């Protein structure tokens, strides 16, 4: 017990040096906690937005092949008894929404211009386009029970009772030369390969880089009428949280195929893995710096206190006691630096959150959204434990040096 007290008190002997070592640890760890909080929230926001961008927590289709070529040939995978299955799922606890979708490939014509479009159709009440007044401003948080399909540039998204209306991408609209209110003719491919044509009114124009050249949106009922399908090829399940989403797959009826959001969003998984890799690299660098700082500090401490080690051993402290004393002091230094650094990281995160968070713009022309930092208990254990272990390692070598000499040799040191 006295060794523990001595190790603790030793921290306050060279206050300036302790402060310098602690400061380095605090700055490094606080930065790591803030960065980790930023990445955690950024990725969870990215994940939620990916899920709500048209994927859902779970997609249920009429056959496995839908997930290969369903967007181009949805009619091959129509779900029998889809309404009943969806109704059953809606009653499951933790389900936010269950709704069908379909789509068709079409050629859009306006005057003498034409463009190929992939028309996606969801129930009107499940489609969300961020309003045009938010352009360039901080984006509003999309509702959790709808798909966020882009930002409106002009017009108004179709309502529940609107039919034969189209939300056209900004690029496609430019190619076709249409404006809100114009009527375009879509020539779509039907289940048996026949063609159908119908006039659609451009209700709105949306912006979504990478999407707005090819994708257009209409309401599900219009698409079902246009293609003549009675059952959807796929339906989407939105859960209230991720944990519940995982258990919903077990509630599906037999004969359907399904994919969860992880399988449907490989890009998110890749980005998430990449950012976790970044974090691991930064953590490793900080641990390396910690090793250097604490190793250097403990080295100096051991050399300066040689006579003390000699005295302690002369009065009967075994080598192991000296080793423990030095390593404990290093660990306490690491522990204090970790606690203060992590605490500072949480405090800075709180301060940033009080100021509204940090802005993040996911693409050119898209409204930025505010990332509120989310450091959690993982930040404590992921940073505290490795730093304390690193501190112990950093102290071990100097400690071995302290016990490598005889007490008399230690006592001879000035």
């Amino acid at each position: 017990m006295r060794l523990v007290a001595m190790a603790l008190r030793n921290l306050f002997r060279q206050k300036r040096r302790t402060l310098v070592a602690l400061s380095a640890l605090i700055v490094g760890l606080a930065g790591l906690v803030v960065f980790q909080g930023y990445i955690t929230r950024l990725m969870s926001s990215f994940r939620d937005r990916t899920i709500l961008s048209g994927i859902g927590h779970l997609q249920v289709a009429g056959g496995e092949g839908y997930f290969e070529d369903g967007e181009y040939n949805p009619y091959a995978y129509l779900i029998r008894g889809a309404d009943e299955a969806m109704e059953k799922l809606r009653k499951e606890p933790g389900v936010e929404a269950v709704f069908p979708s379909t789509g068709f490939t079409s050629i859009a014509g306006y005057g003498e211009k034409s463009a190929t479009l992939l028309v996606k159709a969801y129930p009107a009440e499940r489609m969300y386009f961020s309003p045009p007044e938010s352009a360039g401003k901080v984006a509003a948080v999309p509702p959790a029970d709808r798909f966020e399909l882009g930002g409106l540039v002009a017009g108004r998204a179709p309502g529940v009772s609107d039919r034969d209306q189209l939300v056209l991408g900004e690029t496609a609209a430019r190619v076709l030369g249409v404006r809100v209110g114009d009527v375009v003719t879509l020539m779509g491919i039907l289940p048996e390969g026949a063609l159908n044509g119908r006039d659609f009114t451009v209700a709105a124009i949306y912006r979504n880089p990478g999407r707005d050249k090819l994708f257009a949106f209409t309401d599900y009922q219009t698409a079902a009428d246009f293609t003549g399908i009675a059952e959807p090829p796929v339906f989407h399940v939105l859960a209230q949280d991720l944990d519940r989403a995982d258990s919903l797959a077990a509630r599906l009826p037999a004969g359907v195929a399904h994919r969860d959001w992880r399988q449907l969003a490989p890009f998110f998984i890749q980005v998430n893995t990449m950012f976790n890799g970044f974090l691991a690299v930064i953590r490793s660098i900080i641990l390396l710096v910690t090793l250097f700082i604490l190793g250097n500090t403990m080295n100096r401490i051991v050399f300066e206190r040689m006579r003390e080690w000699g005295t302690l051993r002369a009065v009967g402290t075994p080598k192991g006691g000296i080793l423990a004393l030095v390593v404990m002091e290093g660990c306490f230094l690491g522990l204090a630096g970790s606690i203060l650094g992590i605490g500072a990281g949480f405090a800075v995160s709180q301060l940033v959150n009080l100021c509204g968070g940090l802005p993040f713009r996911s693409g050119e022309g898209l409204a930025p959204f505010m990332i509120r930092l989310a450091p959690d208990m993982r930040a404590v254990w992921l940073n505290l434990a490795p730093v304390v272990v690193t501190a112990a390692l950093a102290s071990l070598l100097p400690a071995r040096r302290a016990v490598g000499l005889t007490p008399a040799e230690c006592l001879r040191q000035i």
Partner: protein
Amino acid sequence: MQIAATATPLIRVMAVGKHYQLEKTQAPALIEVSLDVGEGERLCLMGPSGSGKSTLLNIIGCIDRASSGSVVIDGEETERLDDARLSRFRNRTMGFVFQSFNLIPVLSVFENVEYPLLLQGLPSKERRSRVDELLQKVGLAEYARRSPENLSGGQRQRVAIARALVTRPRLVIADEPTAALDHATGSSIMELMVDMNETAGSTLIFSTHDPSVARYAKRIVRMLDGRIDSEGEAA
């Protein structure tokens, strides 16, 4: 040279040699030194700087290893003990008083004196009683809670003496215990050590190059160039 001591020697130093390895050469610090020290003796090692008295004290005190020869203390061949047993042996058999006091600055006066008893695993009550008794004897009872850094040199050396005696050792080793003190303080420290030697009966071996300090010994061994030069009773 073999110097005979009292009937039953507590310490037998037999043909001890010690050399220090320099870059390419070996510097002898002790050459074939043999010495017996009896139980309860008060022995002074005298000699100029570099004569080997500190080296001999360190070897007797088991805080340094001899290059050759052997030391037997209380029937124990010290060179055969491993670190753990040697540490325990030092803790139970010996007390050390150093020239520059060597108190632990992060421990209070009380804790410094108590420390060797903690290593023995004595219960708290017994430790307190022994430390209080020793601090009373050295006249520092009222300084028990102070940091050693707030004490004078003489007071620090008194604390060191209390620490050396608190385990009731059979042997106390003091390497130039008065060298860092003024004459009056040094005399009072030596009187205290003599008193302890007489009342506790522990063997006291100290080194000095000051004849006025050496007179506190009963036997004086003079060293020169790593050898025992002469030996005799104090005047």
